[in-house]
């Protein structure tokens, strides 16, 4: 493989040969430019927009000030959206933890060759189309969906029950998407527990239940924390699930931002909502760090 015939490329490569600093700069330049120009500068623009006002036809004009933020926090519609997002994020996290812990434990303690295959099966949904996995619930729980069809057929109900476009549907859809994010870190944590600790606990007379609650559970906490943080942050910012499975009451913060930008064209207010959302996420991570300690997660995972 010798693609070095082109003279300019050759001279460029000769130039950087042996010059470590220059080479590092050149190699890291594309990624830096990409993130700077397409993400960081745009974020500064969003911040400036959030201080501006909306003109005719969605233009950005003065006066500049904090009025968008004041409007955001003084209006019940918007504060409710924030609270709803946090509430749904909390519900999804709690359910994922309750539903996911024992399967994670089972997988980690599995000694057969099936384990690697089962882990790959857990990873596949991570990549599988989110929009289709969300749409599937419409086929299952819609008025003409499988669930209502069988209930009607069995005579358990007279008319289809409305399960979609509710908080139930949104939480179900999100749990379905977020569950592997909870199971995998917990699995990793439990998998790393030294078997001799469990043997020692049993040998010293602690029963199965006591060993589980006093050895396994505490040693799996780094995985639990990582899973909870991941699930909470991603669920709070969910867009597709509440948009497809939720009703008007289930408007979440990402939907609010999208509506302001793509439907109402009030970019200054939408920008303020985006900044509020970003600050909330940073705050959540900060509080989480204070309460549990992210260091512990990383140290725990490195043993």
């Amino acid at each position: 493989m010798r693609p070095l015939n082109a003279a300019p490329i050759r001279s460029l490569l000769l130039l950087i040969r042996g010059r470590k600093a220059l080479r590092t700069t050149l190699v890291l330049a594309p990624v830096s430019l990409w993130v700077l120009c397409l993400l960081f500068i745009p974020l500064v623009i969003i911040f400036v927009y959030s201080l501006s006002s909306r003109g005719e036809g969605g233009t950005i004009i003065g006066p500049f000030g904090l009025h968008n933020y004041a409007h955001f926090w003084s209006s019940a519609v918007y504060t409710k959206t924030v609270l709803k997002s946090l509430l749904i994020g909390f519900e999804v996290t709690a359910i994922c933890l309750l539903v996911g812990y024992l399967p994670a434990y089972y997988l980690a303690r599995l000694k057969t060759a099936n384990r690697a295959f089962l882990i790959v099966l857990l990873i596949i949904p991570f990549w599988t189309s989110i929009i289709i996995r969300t749409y599937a619930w419409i086929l299952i729980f819609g008025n003409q969906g499988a669930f209502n069809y069988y209930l009607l057929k069995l005579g358990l109900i007279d008319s289809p029950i409305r399960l979609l476009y509710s908080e139930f549907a949104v939480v179900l859809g999100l749990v379905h998407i977020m569950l592997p994010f909870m199971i995998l870190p917990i699995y990793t944590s439990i998998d790393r527990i030294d078997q001799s600790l469990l043997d020692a606990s049993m040998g010293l007379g602690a029963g199965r239940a006591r060993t589980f609650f006093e050895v396994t559970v505490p040693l799996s906490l780094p995985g639990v924390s990582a899973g909870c943080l991941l699930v909470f942050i991603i669920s709070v910012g969910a867009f597709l699930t509440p948009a497809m499975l939720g009703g008007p009451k289930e408007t979440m913060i990402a939907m609010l931002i999208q509506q302001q930008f793509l439907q109402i064209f009030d970019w200054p207010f939408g920008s303020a909502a985006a900044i509020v959302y970003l600050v909330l996420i940073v705050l959540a991570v900060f509080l989480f760090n204070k309460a549990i300690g992210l260091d512990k997660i990383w140290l725990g995972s490195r043993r």
Partner: protein
Amino acid sequence: MSGLGQGGRRALKWLTVATYVFLFFPVLVVILMSFHPHPVTSFPLPGVSLRWYREFLADTPLLGSLLNSVLVGLCSSLLSGLIGTLAALGFVRSQFKGKQLFGAVILSPMILSPIIIGIALLSLISLIGVYKSFTILVMGHTLLTFPYVFLVVQTQLYGFDRSIEEASMNLGANEIETFFNITLPNILPSIIAGMLFAFTISIDEFVATQCWVSPSTETVPIKIYSMLKYEVTPKVNVLGTIIVAVTIFIPVVAEKLTARRMGVPLARERKTAEPGGG
């Protein structure tokens, strides 16, 4: 499983089975319904028919969106492959001040919510007066996907045995020859795996993409979303089945290429934290 009785073990097993059913059942329903013979879905499947596949193949706008998605996916995964690989090389093989922070910067498109990335880039292009176009879409998708290439290639580079490079240099090859003849062929599988992951993310991305598409650059997820809003037809199930097939098959191939588990970002970051974990 030494810590559990027979009954407990069985209960745990069935709980795990139920979890997997919960994860895969909805997707199966979509695939099954794509073979439904009638316009109104009913259960169980009254028969198997390829009717909606035929109608799908005759639907030019739908096929157009599929073509758009594939083109955007191809272009952005190629660009991501280049940018992500260079970033991984620079990051792993040099020491500089603020390296940890720089690592976070590289991963920021993966950490930030896609709606924020979507509106941020939208604000930039409208401020400088650029129209939404195919190029913008590719640039945006590259931003969203290069961290995946970076992570996969970085993992391989950390576990890279540099003595083969030294051997090459001792035998008289210069740094450039060594890179193209030794380093690149060795990390190529992970570059390709990273690009496959990037393609998978790109083809399914909706939230940021909705900020960047114009009517002529609509991708499959955008199309599906608007179909669900305005005209529900069983053709959605066909398009869904195709997307599901693509987003299951490609990552499995990529996993095989890397020959190790790299599912969620977290699992990958951890791998790199272990000595010799590449």
